[in-house]
């Protein structure tokens, strides 16, 4: 998932649609994110490329909507409802995911196993 600035990046992505769950007043997705361009990418345990400042799924709550939708720990979120998540601050990503007026978020995520699967399919 590393990229050279200015160069297009190709990634194998999966579309995941999560319906938010209403908990009291809050709409929750049931996962947590780490990363962002304002964070130290070196501390991201999930990225292969330690300069990757993308948004990663750090935890997925058991039985939560995200898990049901197939989101996995370590997934890199590429887009949220069409918004790019590869060059955003942590907070921007969080806000984008927690819009009160959106009940559904559509993610494009990439993960290593996806790419491996595709690679294997090609062999």
């Amino acid at each position, binding site marked *: 998932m590393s990229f050279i600035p200015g160069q297009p990046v*190709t990634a194998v992505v999966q579309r995941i649609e999560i319906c938010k769950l209403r908990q009291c007043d809050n709409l929750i997705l049931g996962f947590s994110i780490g990363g962002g361009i304002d964070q130290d990418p070196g501390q991201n345990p999930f990225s292969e490329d330690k300069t990757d400042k993308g948004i990663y799924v750090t*935890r997925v709550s058991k039985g939560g909507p995200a898990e049901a939708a197939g989101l996995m720990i370590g997934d890199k979120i590429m887009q949220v409802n069409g918004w790019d998540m590869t060059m955003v601050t942590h907070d921007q990503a969080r806000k984008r995911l927690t819009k009160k007026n959106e009940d559904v978020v559509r993610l494009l995520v990439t993960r290593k196993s996806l790419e491996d699967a595709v690679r294997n399919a090609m062999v």
Partner: protein
Amino acid sequence: MEECDVHSTASILASVKEQEARFERLTRALEEERRTVSLQLERGTLPSTASGTQSLAWQQMVMQEQSPSNQTSLAMMQEPQEIVEETVTIEEDPGTPTSHVSVVTSDDGTTRRTETKVTKMVKTVTTRTVRQVPLGPDGVPFPEGSSPLGSYTNSIDRRFMKNGERFSTPQATSTLTRSYNNYSDSYGETPEGPYRHYGLHDGYGDLPDSYGSLSRGVNYRPRYPYMASSGYRPENSYTLPIRKDDYSHVAQPQVPLGGTVDLNRSQPERFQAEPYGLEDDRRSLGPDDDEPYDLESDYSTANRRTVGGANHGRHMREPPRVRGGYEDPIEADLIDDRHPYMPNLYSAPLAQAELGSLASLDRMGPMGGRRSPSADSVRKDPRWRDPDLPEVIAMLGHPVDPVKSNAAAYLQHLCYENDKVKKEVRHLKGVPLLVGLLDHPRPEVHRKACGALRNISYGRDHDNKVAIKNCDGIPALIRLLRKTSDMEVRELVTGTLWNLSSYEPLKMVIINHGLQTLTNEVIIPHSGWEQEPNEDSKPRDAEWTTVFKNTSGCLRNVSSDGAEARRRLRECEGLVDALLHALQSAVGKKDMDNKSVENCVCIMRNLSYHVHKEVPGAEKFQEPSTNQAPGSVGPQRKKKDDAGCFGGKKTKEEWFNQGRKNGESEKSYDTLDLPKRTEPTKGFELLYQPEVVRLYLSLLTESQNYNTLEAAAGALQNLSAGQWTWSNYIRATVRKEKGLPILVELLRSDSDKVVRAVAIALRNLSMDRRNKDLIGSYAMRDLVSNLPSGQQRPAKNLEEDTVVAVLNTIHEIVTDSSENARSLIQAQAIEKLVAINRTSQSQRETKAASYVLQAVWSHKELRNSLAKDGWNKTHFQPTATSQAKGTRSNKPAYDDTTLPLMEKNQGNKKSISGDMIPMDELDPDGYSTIDQKDKDCKYKSGDVSSDLAEREPLKNDTNRKQFVRTNRPAVNLVDTCDVKPQPVDSWV
């Protein structure tokens, strides 16, 4: 293949069911058919041995599904299989419609072979289906063991079959009576040898098996290839006429050839060549058999009857493979030999299956999927290869939709960042074909074609853009935009237009064809603007979609095409309103660093250029004082604008508190003779209404995007230029809205172009006397700090244009204001000015500095203090010539203050920055979402690069205290080295 089988299982089941139902209907139809056929029976010269009832029934179905007008042509298409005699019979017939029917009935068994090829990367699935219609000319329906259905049921992997076996398959031969002989004759001339199986006859026996192995479901509807595909995707049926059209241009040239015997003979040779070119036996099998179907359009014509039956059949079969040759003699051999199956790509049941399998991977499908299938085929058959470029381009004209779309998709991939391929595509005449596909009714076809065009249109090679334009690609794109509601297609269309719009000569074409459509279809809906706002609902926000970004980028480019383009855009209904609404929404949401906002601001800026001259009715607002000499303008204006409000010189506090002094400000408005508005402003009038000042100032305050900053400053610069009522009002409004400090702060920007635009804006604003005083007092230091000291450039290393702009602004504010001149001296500017005047490498800088020095020296009351600092008259005299004096007196009034005055005097307009405001041309290459081999990664391409470019400088900015803004997210970028923040982790 296993993969294919798996995927097609479901579809097979489904189609079997469907077919059972159909059989019922068909058996009913059969009786009727028999009656019709009986007429023909007498006429039939050849006994048909193999006719399947079912197939007949199927045929009937085909007919039923076609529109009545198509029946004839369908019948014709079936003919190729006919023998000579049969055709003759028809001729003898008085031409009653029934004769056609007889032809139809003659067909029975159908064999098909399907081949699937998936190109790498783009999920190009090429499917070849070969069908054979064994004929019973008389059409006695007669289900026998050898009927196609029988063979279909045995699904045998074709690869395990020996060619020879197929050839000898009894069913196959039995279906061919005399017609068979004819074919053999033609083959006889060519060395058949091991390649016998390529002959038609082989196909009969052979195909069913192979086909069965691929997808059994398809086999049941086989007579007519198109029908087969329609079975899979019912919507296909309507594409039939189009296929004809598409194909006809390719196939037609063959018609004249049809009658000649020579041709028949020569063709077999080509035919033979194939096996060599294509080693893949799967491919080599099919080509001939499909032909008849391809040629429908040609053969349905009356002249076809005059052709001998044998020739006829032969032609029908041949054309596809040689079609390349007819089309383009140069490529003919290539296409013909290497890619014989191209023409044969019929419906692609397999392709569908592939798609289905990929669907699980979702959009990355193209990416992930694009490799696997081809890799798959490579594994299965090491001899498999990718089609080369001419082949791919030829496939664009293929009658079968999936082939077209896959070819286009593959082309898109090939063209990705490969200028050489793009050029080649152009030379191979691929562009008109792609443009033609834009009007194709099927989404995947026009989508893929558009994707290919977007990649082709991208880049510095303008010839590609011109090629698209020359085949009416722009109207076609616009049509597609109007027609489609598919977001992805819209993105592609607008992306292509954005690319095209970067080339000067195409701008007006885009305006002529697409301006109103782009506005109505994209800009207005996505901007959230509503023509008649619903009082109850709150205004909608703009949506920063890719479509909007692309479209605004396109309009941004075309808006720089001169006065006429500006006029068209201004007068385009709803455009200005929508853009303003979008920007206001951006400001409201504090979301203004994106590309769409940048594009919108740039359009606004360009449209604001020369409003005071170009807008209809502008003359009504011209200030009578405009033609006066600058010296006398100042006081007058002062009187006008500031009457009573800002009488004396303001303190610094007042400067910053102006906004609060509403009472005063209101009063100052009153003193301006504003035209009374009877109805709400709309359209281009909005461009120069004082309300926009606040919008631009918000952008200048909040945005971190240099392009946006530059454009917003440029808009103010344009609006405050000129001598008409509105610019007076704008100048006062900027002051009232506390815009001057905002602008002054931006003089410290690290971006050269921002500094330049701001400097010129300040110069225009200082035409207002009050502004001049304020700017002189508070901006002088920042202006001077942008000047290079002698040969040493300042840290920012501003461009010549910027330095000249700053000098011109200084000149403007010290002219007629000894107070400002004093500020200049206090800012230690004289030393810098003298240094520039004496040592600068740039003549323009030298001159501009010289004018400033002269202006300073002209304040006699300052000479004493200047002398004390060690300056004397010689420092203030022009070093070059004394021309300066003369030119200064010529200095035109402030009629066009977007032009730095000095430059104008020198007749050197061209190089000056202010002059070129509309130049804000975005090279789409830097930004456009272009291409990607697959659309999935588009979110990564353009955005990332531009974001990086724009954000990187933030590190520097944040070191400058003045420039740190609270909303900058960049704090951690700077701090990372010192503090390692714990990774943040937020539940969402």
